[in-house]
């Protein structure tokens, strides 16, 4: 099981790297969907006893459904509605983002091993990868201009927290997990609507231009 969990975690790292280097929104959303599927399987592999129970299976199914299917669908629809294909001119370029990603991975590896949980983790990769995923999500939110990419970043961030939760999954009541999922669901839903409306009003979804909304400044500037 540890072997499978490790492979899943490595895939998670690779998907994060793809997110850092990707410019097409379609690619980003697809990658987040893949992350969702990986995360759905992770608790099954990570269960220390090896035995499966219904609670775990239900959680895996719910995770896969929401993270792997519903949320990406919503985002894809938003992309279609607002007609934005790619992230043009991110604040930090793609090559630099990749390098930052490598540094973040080294940092999270270091922190992850220092943090070594009291109980033996399922895989030594689990905590580092969780921290890395959180950092990548935050980095995406910070350095991308389009609101939709930022939503993707938010999802990645949440995936990281979820991964972190997996290390304790067999202890944690199912309820907490599900409520987290619900939170994200509602969050993305609201953001999707807002993004759509912003786009309809202002013809663009550049988040850094939202500061123009202050105090009746001109919104004449179109992209």
């Amino acid at each position, binding site marked *: 099981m540890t072997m499978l969990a490790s492979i899943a975690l490595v895939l998670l790292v690779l998907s994060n790297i793809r997110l850092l280097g990707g410019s097409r929104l379609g690619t980003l959303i697809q990658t987040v969907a893949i992350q969702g599927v990986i995360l759905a399987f992770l608790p099954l592999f990570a269960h220390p006893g090896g035995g499966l129970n219904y609670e775990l299976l239900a959680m895996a199914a719910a995770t896969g459904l929401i993270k792997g299917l519903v949320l990406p669908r919503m985002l894809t629809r938003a992309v279609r509605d607002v007609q934005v294909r790619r992230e043009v001119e991110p604040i*930090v*370029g793609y*090559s*630099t983002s990749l390098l930052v990603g490598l540094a973040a991975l*080294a940092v999270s*590896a*270091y922190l992850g*091993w220092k943090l070594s949980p009291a109980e033996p983790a399922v895989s030594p990769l689990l905590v580092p990868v969780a921290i890395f995923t959180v950092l990548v999500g935050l980095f995406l939110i910070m350095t991308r201009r389009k609101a939709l990419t930022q939503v993707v970043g938010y999802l990645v961030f949440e995936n990281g927290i979820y991964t972190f939760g997996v290390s304790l999954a067999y202890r944690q009541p199912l309820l907490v997990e599900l409520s987290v999922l619900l939170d994200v669901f509602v969050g993305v839903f609201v953001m999707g609507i807002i993004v759509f409306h912003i786009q309809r009003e202002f013809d663009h979804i550049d988040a850094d231009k939202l500061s123009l909304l202050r105090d009746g400044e001109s919104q004449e500037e179109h992209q």
Partner: protein
Amino acid sequence: MTLVASALAVLLLSGFASLALGRKSFAAVVAVGGAVAAAALGIIPATMCLAGAAPVSIAVPWSVPGGAFHIGLDPLSSIFAVVILAVSALSAMYGAGYLQGHSSAASTGPHWFFYNALTASMLVVVTAQNAVLFLVAWECMALSSFFLVTFHNEHADVRKAGWIYLVASHMATAFLIFLFAVLGSRAGSFEFADWTSTPPAAGALFLVALIGFGAKAGIVPLHVWLPQAHPAAPSHVSAVMSGVMIKTGIYGLLRVTGFLGAPEAWWGYVLVAVGISSGILGVLFALAQHDIKRLLAYHSVENIGIIILGMGLGLVGISKGNSVLAVLGFSGAILHVVNHAIFKSLLFMGAGSVVRATGIRDIDSLGGLLKSLPWTAAMFFIGAAAISALPPLNGFVSEFLIFIGALSGFSLAHASVSLASCAAVASLALIGGLAAACFAKAFGMTFLGEPRSPLAHDPREAGPAMLAPMAVLSLACAAIGLLPAQAMALVSRAAAHLALASPVDAADALKWASFPLSAVSAVAFALFALVALLAAVRLVILSKRPVDHGLTWDCGYAKPTARMQYTSSSFAQPLTSLFRPLLQTHTKGGEPTGVFPGHTTFSTDTPDVFENSMFKPVFLAVAKVAALVRSFQHGRIHVYILYIVLALLVLLFWKLG
């Protein structure tokens, strides 16, 4: 040891003699003769010490409180002393030729006085066994080099560079005075030999030393004086400053770290991080430059980064009990000090010959000089290949030592050491690739192709006085590259001492390195043999075939001109634009537009980011505060007397009241 003292005496006497001779052309001969004689005298005991003789010292009492004229040679001092004396003597010979026919009316006597004073003070710095003597020599070094930098003081930018250098030096010295005051007052003595116990807050003192010595060595972000001062100085002075003077910072850091007790792991990690950032930023800024001397100055920042990286791995090795990593890290660092002294002074001399022959420092306007300066070009080529760490030359050997040191530190047991090693290897590889790109640019654009702009007069090859020192340095590059094991043997004693390794551990570490090094040397010889063989094959083939000469293939374009060649800026553009966020290159002008484009100009300029966004705001703020204080100073003498009286009274009340 008397030989070292007599070397000092020869340096000072010849310096004063040339000062007295002033304008006469004999001044240079006396000074250069003194520098060469001093080198001959000083290198003998230093080499004996490196070969295994016991450390020696000489002490003369001195009236300064806490001070004593106490100098000595141990393996570490000896290496630096040899490098300082050899490079200074060679650069002096070069300088005599370089300044000949120097147009400025200024007398060269004082210049040579300061030159020999600089050499003498550097020699005292690396042999001083007393903190007060060290600081005095350190200050003499800063002052004499200041006067050397401002040789062409008729130019405003040279004066500005000189001031920046002076301010930077003194701010760094302030840290050192604080450091030595703390260490000295705690031990109750200013003799280095008495500083044996571990001081409290050793980590903080280590950081103070890093700032103080690092500013002299030129680590990022304390390097801002370096790209200003080195291009401003005459080329032989740049060779000494970049080749050996900044290394006294490295010496100081190595020496003082030994006074701080057992190093902690984080010191090493800090040095690794500082080394990586200096190395990468240095080479990137170098890539973006088109002034050849400024480019070389930024490469000093890069190479100091590599040295600091090696030191950092060494400290990590000590703290983790990995003696192989410790010995190899320090060996690589020290050997790189030697290597960088050799090839960087060689390169500055080559650049000096180019500047002297053409009067141009902008690589974008040069080209095709290989035909008129064949010897300078050949030796600049050797220097360029050496600094790019290409085998079979010396630059590769020291980087290889750091590389295999890092590999030896790579074990699954110590994840954090492995991460540091891994970062070191990856960044050394990146630095190597970028340095090769940069020197392909520096050599290719200066010496190859066709001239990019018309020259005022035909460039003439430098005379033998300038070529001979360069030839010696080129041979040294090749010698260390071909015989790396012997070079390692010279530095290994100092490295083992720094690594706090027991003789058994040190022998173990050397064994780790000796097989790879002898293999490297075998490959280097094989490479030469293969080159000779292939060249012979080519000659044999071509002896029976037609060899024609024509135009460069112009891809069908009918009228290619020399101005259509790639320039250094266009050559570096892919890399500079890739790293634009770090470099913040300014561009002026734009692309031609329209169907019948008219005239357009385009130029790029990469000023130092740290100077503009880090130091300038601070100094502007200081200047603002200083302006307030200015109201106290209006030139009326009686008010000054009042200040003095007030100060006296306040002091008396504070002490007695």
